[in-house]
Structure formats: structure tokens, C-alpha cells
């Protein structure tokens, strides 16, 4: 059954800090109504966590934000998603350019079977962000530093990216994602394949990146959502049930469904 989300008004915040504005977003996979009328404003320079049980639509909604669902034939998207006021589903928008602006990091680290250097240099090369080798070197170094992995790989930039440890590979993927100077970084369970130390490093990195980007992270770890995010959105059966300050959601949520989920109860 469809219930109206709590605090509908507060999903929509002051225009000034809004990076992504989603209105009446519906997603269908064939006959399956996967996202049901989601309205949300995602703020700039903020980490927003999407939480919810498997199949609740959080990853689907995340993938709408850089048009990754375009690659799925049966997926149909309705509604309006704007980044800085620009409708990203407008026919004039090139999805490749959009994805340079809206970077993505996936659950499993997926470095290209290339050197560490080329992994990071790939995006800037295809988008023509560097005029010469020196500029490209600079972008690679800056990106690896932002990915908090420079010190560990600076002496072996020509070694294959796939030879790194899992946590290093994931940081390499983050470095690769930031190399194209995105404004938004989407992360779909970025730490689920990592040990607690590598997870801690990624979380530290997320907090650093918040200075420059709007970050949206999908996570199954309640504690991670509580630690890294300032805003949390709880999805349930395709509905955005509750969206608000992370502190509020984790200490005193409005909706019983949110409460049951974050406290580990059968909802």
C-alpha cells in the first residue's frame, strides 16, 4: 500500500544549497513500479545517505541521477530531475557529459585492466581536460591525492590497477571518478567489499570530498550512514518514506517504518 511520505514539505529545501532537485520521479522496470513519486532536494557540499532494505529502490533512484538507468532497456523514467536547475533528461543533454559531472563509484572496485596512471588519466583524456602530458600528470597526481592513495602508489604508477588491494582499488576508483572534476559523486555501497580499516579510510575520504562535492551514498550499514552523512533518506517499497537530518533520523525518526528498519526490527 502506498503511504504519503512524512514531512513532504521538508523534502524540499531552500533553493540556494540545492544541487539536485527531483520532482514526481517514477521508475518502471517493465510492469514493476520501482520508484513511486519521489520528491527530494539534495544539497550541495553535503553527504546524503540513501538507506532501506534490499529492493526498496535506493540504488535505482541513485542511478537515475546520472542516467545510468538509460542503459537498461525495460527501464522507464518519468518526472523531473534537475541538477543546478538543468533538466538532466532533456534531449539536449549528452549522458556522457552528464556522467563526467556526476561521477559514480560502485560496490565492487572495478579498476580498468590498465596501469594505475591510465585508470585515472582515462576520463580526462576522453573529455580532453588536459592539453599536454604535464597537465595530465598534474591531474593524475591531484586526483590520486584526493583519493587519499597517492603516497601508496606514487612509485608504481605504471603497475596495473588490478594488482592493488581491495581498499586501494576502491580509492583508485574514487580517484578515477574525481579526475573529471565532477560536481556530484554517487556511491553505491562503496565499502561493502572492504575491511574496517579500508572502510575507515574511505569514510575519512568521503568527509574530505564533502568540501567540494555533493555526495550521495547508498549503504546497508546503518552505522556508516550515521557516521558519514548529514542527510538521510529512507526508502521502502519504492517510496521515499522519510528524509531529514541524519541525527534526527537516527535518534528520533518520524515514521514507524524508518524506526523499525534502523533499529533492526521486522517492519
Amino acid at each position, binding site marked *: 500500500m502506498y503511504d504519503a511520505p512524512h514531512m513532504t514539505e521538508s523534502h524540499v529545501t531552500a533553493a540556494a544549497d540545492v544541487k539536485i532537485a527531483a520532482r514526481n520521479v517514477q521508475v518502471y522496470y517493465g510492469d514493476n513500479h520501482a520508484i513511486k513519486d519521489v520528491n527530494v532536494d539534495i544539497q550541495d557540499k553535503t553527504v546524503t545517505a540513501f538507506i532501506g532494505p534490499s529492493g526498496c529502490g535506493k540504488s535505482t533512484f541513485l542511478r537515475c541521477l546520472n542516467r545510468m538507468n538509460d542503459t537498461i532497456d525495460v527501464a522507464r523514467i518519468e518526472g523531473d530531475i534537475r541538477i543546478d536547475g538543468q533538466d538532466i533528461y532533456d534531449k539536449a543533454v549528452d549522458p556522457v557529459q552528464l556522467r563526467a559531472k556526476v561521477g559514480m563509484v560502485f560496490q565492487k572496485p572495478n579498476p580498468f585492466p590498465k596501469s594505475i596512471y591510465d585508470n585515472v588519466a582515462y576520463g580526462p583524456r576522453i573529455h580532453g581536460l588536459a592539453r599536454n602530458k604535464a597537465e595530465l600528470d598534474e591531474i593524475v597526481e591531484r586526483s590520486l591525492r584526493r583519493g587519499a592513495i597517492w603516497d601508496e602508489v606514487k612509485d608504481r604508477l605504471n603497475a596495473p590497477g588490478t594488482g592493488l588491494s581491495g581498499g586501494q582499488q576502491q580509492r583508485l576508483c574514487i580517484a578515477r571518478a574525481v579526475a573529471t572534476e565532477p560536481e556530484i559523486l554517487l556511491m553505491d555501497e562503496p565499502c561493502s567489499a572492504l575491511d574496517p580499516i579500508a572502510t575507515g579510510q574511505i569514510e575519512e575520504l568521503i568527509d574530505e570530498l564533502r568540501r567540494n562535492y555533493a555526495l550521495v551514498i547508498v549503504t546497508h550499514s*546503518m*552505522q556508516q550512514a*550515521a557516521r558519514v552523512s548529514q542527510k538521510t533518506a529512507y526508502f521502502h517499497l519504492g517510496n521515499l518514506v522519510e528524509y531529514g537530518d541524519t541525527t534526527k533520523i*537516527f*535518534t*528520533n*525518526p518520524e515514521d*514507524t517504518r*524508518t*524506526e*523499525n528498519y*534502523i*533499529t*533492526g*526490527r*521486522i*517492519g
Partner: protein
Amino acid sequence: MVEQHISSAYDRDLEGIQAQIMKMGGLVEQAILDAAVSLETRDDALSEKVRAGDKTIDKLDEVINEQAARVIALRAPTAIDLRVILSVMKISSNLERIGDLAKNMAKRNTVLLTLQPVNGAASTLRRMAKEVERMLKDALDSYIQRDAELARAVINHDHDVDQMYNAIFREFLTFMMEDPRNITGCMHLHFIAKNVERMGDHVTAIAEQVVFLVEGEMPDDERPKGDTTSLDADLPS
């Protein structure tokens, strides 16, 4: 409706801690009553029972804190579970303080046995203690029933205890002025009255924790402050 946890051991942990709180609450209620009755009936054995019983109350406070720390470490509680843990820790330390105050009353009872009784004071103090005991019972009921309204009623009731204390304070001043031989007894009785008045404040703090537990926010501090004796330099007429 809040459901059971997927992990039933988590439910058992939380229920276990709350059962300890209720046990502790029961012991503290009895300590208040016993301390007041032993004052009125000049029953030294009962005073001794209150003094000895405080150890059990202190031990329960320790157990509750250990169990709460364990839940925090193992379960990382959130939302209602977090509020349960935070509130049991505070309720427990307030109960422990009430237990100490009852013990202190009982100690003074033993001294008072050696003195001439002060006219009517013991029965007034017993009524005041009975009032606090009833507030504590309501506060604990409101905790178990998650009843914020009942908790608010307890908070508002503290004013009555403060008024009783003000009246007794003036009464003791009068007795002391009438006959200096009353001074030692009245000083002890006054400390007992102050202990009971402080118990009321601790019960109020417990009721505030219930409001926090149920509603997620502490109640507004708008209740009238009833103990005016600290502002009162005038002698009673």
C-alpha cells in the same frame, strides 16, 4: 507499532535491563516508605533495614550500567533503542540517589531516637514521603506504559512536595525559636524534610526521562519552582 527485533537476543537484553530498573524502583519505593514509617514509629530495626538495603540498590545501579554499556558496545542502538538505553542509565542513577537520601533519613532516625520527639513533625514528614513514593510509583508506571501524559502529571506534582517542604521549614523555625532544646531535633528533621524534597526532584528527573523516551525530546522546563526557602530571609510571623 514498534515490533520485535530481528535479533531476539537484543529484545532479551533490553527487557533484562528494564526488568532491573523495575526491581530497583520497587526497592527504592519501599525504602522511602520504611524510612518514613521508622521515623514516625521510632522503629530502629526498620531504620537499620533501610540502611542495609541501600547496598542492594547501589549494586543494581552498577549492574544496570554494565548491561547498558554492553548493549551500546554490541548493538550500537539507534532511535527508540538508543533512548531506552540513555533513559535507563539516567533513571538508574536517579533511583540510586533517592536510595542514598532514604538511607540518610534512616541514619538520622537513629539519632532522633535519643531526643525528645518534636510535636507532629514525624507524621507530616511521613505524609510528604508518602506523596513522593506515590510520584515515584507513577513515574515508574509511566515508564513501563510509555505514558508521557502520566509522566507530565508527575512532573507537575512536584510543586506540591515543594509546598509541603516550605510549610515544614517554617514550622521547624517556629519550634526552634519557641524552645532552643528543639534545635538539635529540628535540624535533623529539617535535613530529613530536605531529603524528601530532593527525592521529589529526582522523581521529576525520572519522569522527564520518560517524556524523552516516548517523545524523543526533553519536556520544556516550564514547571513552577516550588522551593522558595532559599529566597526567604524573613522569619515566620
